[in-house]
């Protein structure tokens, strides 16, 4: 197995270098012609915000990892990059790495849910560009299977591991249907926008936004289809909302105890979930003492995040077990693949002999007897070849170094002169 690969990722280089080497889909498509034929027979390129990787089968025995570096850096020159910013992989180590990436084990955010989709996209792009051979396709298929198994059979992707997802998880612990709840987002900055995106993703429909600068709120509202509230009067309307997410850059609190006490009274005690992710905080933290007001600041959300990261860490052995299983299956498949041509040659040789002998008697016996002989010789041939075929497959499946199966193949080829016959046919 001469699969080789290089990877620049969050463990080998700072974010600046990773960003500099990030490749868009169009850039990857442009890189393929440079790799194709001279460097790699076939391969794929995976590029996300945390990694850029090239894997493939060398076009010639002389091709090494250096050729991959050089081609990549020639295509996208980055001065500060050195060799030690890349990890190098060869043979089964390459496959194990590809499986670890697909399962999210190698991600900066352990169990990252996006990486499997990004890996799939990378494999499909290579396929679409005619740059994926059958062996590479098999490796990619198994990698996708590993990723899917990791998600379905373990909890590696469970629980929120970012503040904004933790906020949504908390909201979901209070309310059951976000689509029937009314949400207010205070602050139209980047964090506010991220919160809106997460909420919309979870089914929130009725979302309003308020911002000190009205124009900014209107911009966000236009982008996501939100209603805009006026900053001067939003405190009088707090009771209308089930969920409030606040992320302004204000230096002082903008909502006080009395505002929330009035709001909860007007709601007859119906709960309000407040997520205050601003630093310094936007809400007077005494509001947490009001019954049915669930107030969470960044510290309390961090508790959820830390707990979930710990839970994901506990799932690593399970995912590694899946990777080991799939690597073993792949290994068996690959070894059998190597003895398949010998089995095929052997069977062809016997079939050829059988047909020759049948041809000799064809005109000497009646058709009914001919059919019987044909059937009988086919069965004899099947029985004669059954054990050699099974033995060869068995050796290939169980033989770690594959040497024994190779020896048997060579003996068979030598005994029956299979290679000579094949050359004669050509």
């Amino acid at each position, binding site marked *: 197995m001469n699969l080789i690969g290089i990877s620049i990722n969050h463990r080998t280089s700072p974010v600046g270098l990773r960003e500099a080497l990030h490749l868009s889909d169009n850039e990857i498509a442009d890189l393929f012609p440079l790799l194709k034929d001279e460097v790699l027979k076939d391969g794929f390129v995976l590029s996300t915000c945390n990694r850029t990787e090239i894997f493939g089968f060398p076009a010639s025995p002389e091709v090494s990892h250096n050729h991959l570096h050089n081609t990549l850096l020639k295509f996208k020159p980055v001065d500060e990059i050195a060799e030690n910013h890349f990890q190098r992989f060869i043979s089964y180590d390459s496959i194990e790495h590809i499986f670890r990436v697909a399962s999210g084990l190698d991600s900066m955010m352990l169990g990252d849910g996006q990486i499997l989709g990004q890996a799939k996209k990378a494999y499909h792009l290579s396929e679409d560009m005619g740059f994926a051979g059958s062996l590479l396709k098999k490796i990619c298929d198994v990698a996708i299977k590993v990723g899917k198994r990791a998600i379905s059979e373990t909890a590696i992707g469970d629980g929120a591991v970012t503040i904004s997802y933790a906020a949504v998880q908390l909201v979901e612990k*209070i*309310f059951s249907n976000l689509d029937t709840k009314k949400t207010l987002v205070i602050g139209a900055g980047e964090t506010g926008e991220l919160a809106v995106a997460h909420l919309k993703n979870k089914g929130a429909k009725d979302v309003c936004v308020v911002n000190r600068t009205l124009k900014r709120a209107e911009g966000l509202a236009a982008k996501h289809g939100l209603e805009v509230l006026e900053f001067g009067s939003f405190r009088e309307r707090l009771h209308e909302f089930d969920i409030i997410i606040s992320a302004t850059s204000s230096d002082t609190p903008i909502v006080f105890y009395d505002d929330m006490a009035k709001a909860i009274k007007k709601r*007859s005690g119906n*709960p309000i979930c407040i997520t205050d992710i601003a630093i310094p905080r936007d809400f007077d933290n005494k509001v947490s003492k009001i019954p049915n007001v669930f107030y969470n600041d960044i510290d309390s959300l961090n*508790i*959820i995040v830390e707990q979930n990261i710990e839970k994901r860490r506990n799932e690593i052995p399970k995912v590694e077990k899946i990777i080991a299983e799939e690597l073993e299956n792949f290994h068996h498949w690959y070894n059998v693949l190597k003895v398949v041509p010998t089995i095929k040659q052997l069977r062809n040789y016997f079939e050829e002999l059988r047909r020759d002998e049948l041809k000799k008697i064809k005109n000497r016996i009646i058709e009914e007897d001919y059919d019987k002989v044909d059937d009988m010789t086919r069965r004899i041939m099947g029985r004669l070849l059954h054990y050699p075929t099974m033995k060869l497959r068995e050796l290939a499946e169980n033989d770690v170094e594959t040497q024994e199966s190779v020896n048997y193949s060579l003996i068979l080829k030598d005994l029956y002169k299979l290679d000579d016959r094949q050359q004669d046919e050509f």
Partner: protein
Amino acid sequence: MLQAISILNILMPILYLTTFLAYATDFFNNKINLANSKRIFLLITLFTHFGYLIMRVVEFDHAPITNKFELFTLLASTISFAYFVLELLTDVRGTGLFIIFFSLLFQISSSLFIENIFEVKDILRNPLLGIHVVSALIGHSGITLSAVYGVLFLLLYKRIKSHNYGVIFNKLPNLEILEKMSFYSVVIGYLLFTVSILIGTLWLPSAFPNFNPYDPKIISTVVIWVVYTAGIGAKLIFKWYGKKVIVFSLIGFAVVIISMVSTIIIASSFHQFQ
């Protein structure tokens, strides 16, 4: 058949304990997933329990309602059955542990003290009494479920307020669902309780020569009914949410327990048949 009944009498608490442990393992242990198998345990327990009850009816020729230990085993089955239906309808599987615990308690006390009674008063074979008792029992099951969900609501409420995100936070359904389950259980319990009271009011005076309207059990039943009427009414009219309604449900349940203890065990009543 008597021998089979005796064996099942020992087996029932064991089955409830096994089901309870399956639910507890699934709740507390993240590494073992019993989400589906615990439901199968419950189903087997319920089937066996219904078989056990039917065998008792056939063998002793009366419904198992003649004394408190027969009622306890009936109550154990109705609580678990009500929970099973609720779990199927809502697919909320994280609360069974707390409900089946009550079935386990009732079944243990029943299995320990239940007797094989062949001779009972004729009145105990009357179908109206059967409906009166069964509706009261299902009513009690609903009220018990409501109380359990109420306690779980308060637990989760406290955990979220104090930012304690442990096993209770992770495993229980959200507050809105717990509140709804508590409320739906209490409404069903209340309706059946009302049916039981109506039958009792109309039929009991003619059936029992020693009927006494000031019997402690009747007075406590009326108090329970008033508490639940007030709670449900407040929720519907004033759109109360959460804690307030839950507190009403828990007060009602406390009155039920006090009433059961005081009238069945301490006070004498025409409601006792032995």
